């Protein structure tokens, strides 16, 4: 008999946490934009010093990892445990590359002398992307825990996979806004 994945419908607890975390980031987006409105040229000039190709690469990486997590949940729900684990492993691998790229980006910026104390833009850049990176690491840890629990397909395992997938997609949504706001915003 094939074990069926008993998935709870969007657990409200994790959704509340995610909504609160998103709201918290939105406050910081507002803070950044208010400060930026005072010196748009400085912020736009500083943004040009970022490597937009690395930002693009990391965006594609997170989107792809999010797709793989959604695909893993789809497989788990139809009882295809091996496919679910394989897809989740690829999602973890892809997500880990984000951390490698971000670490490389930080070190190359620091080598160029662009540090948090350089100016207000870079202070925001390091704090916002740093807090986001912490979310990425927590998300990867949650996905790894879900991967281990996927050995058994039961309601508890389903809850783990669904909740960590929701958290991972939030990390993706936050990056979508951070990439546009920090890397792509110019001034006239």
């Amino acid at each position, binding site marked *: 008999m094939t074990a069926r994945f008993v998935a709870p419908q969007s657990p409200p607890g994790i*959704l509340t946490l995610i909504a609160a975390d*998103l709201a918290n980031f939105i406050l910081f987006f507002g803070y950044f934009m208010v400060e930026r409105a005072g010196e748009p040229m400085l912020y736009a000039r500083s943004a040009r010093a970022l490597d*937009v190709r690395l930002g693009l690469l990391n965006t594609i990486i997170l989107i792809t990892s999010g*797709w793989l997590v959604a695909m893993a949940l789809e497989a788990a729900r139809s009882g295809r445990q091996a496919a679910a684990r394989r897809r989740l492993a690829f999602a973890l691998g892809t997500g880990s590359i984000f951390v490698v790229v971000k670490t490389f980006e930080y070190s190359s910026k620091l080598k160029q002398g662009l540090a948090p104390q350089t100016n207000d833009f870079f202070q925001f850049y390091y704090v916002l992307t740093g807090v986001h990176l912490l979310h990425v690491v927590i998300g990867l840890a949650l996905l790894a825990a879900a991967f281990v629990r996927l050995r058994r397909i039961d309601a508890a395992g389903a809850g783990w996979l669904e909740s960590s997938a929701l958290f991972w997609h939030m990390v993706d949504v936050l990056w*979508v806004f951070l990439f546009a706001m920090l890397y*792509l*915003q110019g001034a006239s």
Partner: protein
Amino acid sequence: MRALTAPSLTMIWLLLVALTLVGFGGAQASGWGFAAVMLAAAAKAALIVRNYMELRRAPLPWRIVFDGLIGLAAALILGFHFLG
């Protein structure tokens, strides 16, 4: 409403990649050019929230909260962009 099938999830991924490239094409834009970049970002966020996070299947209050947060983020960034 049923959960999305694998081909639908892949179609969403392709849309997300396409919107990312549209946004990248507008790098360093300001004014209405940046508005287009932010619109592409908000569309991506909405696609993820509705399809990957499955909020399209959630009760209306949750959909309002998440769509509202995405709208708020985009409006806040764009509003202050035009003020700057």
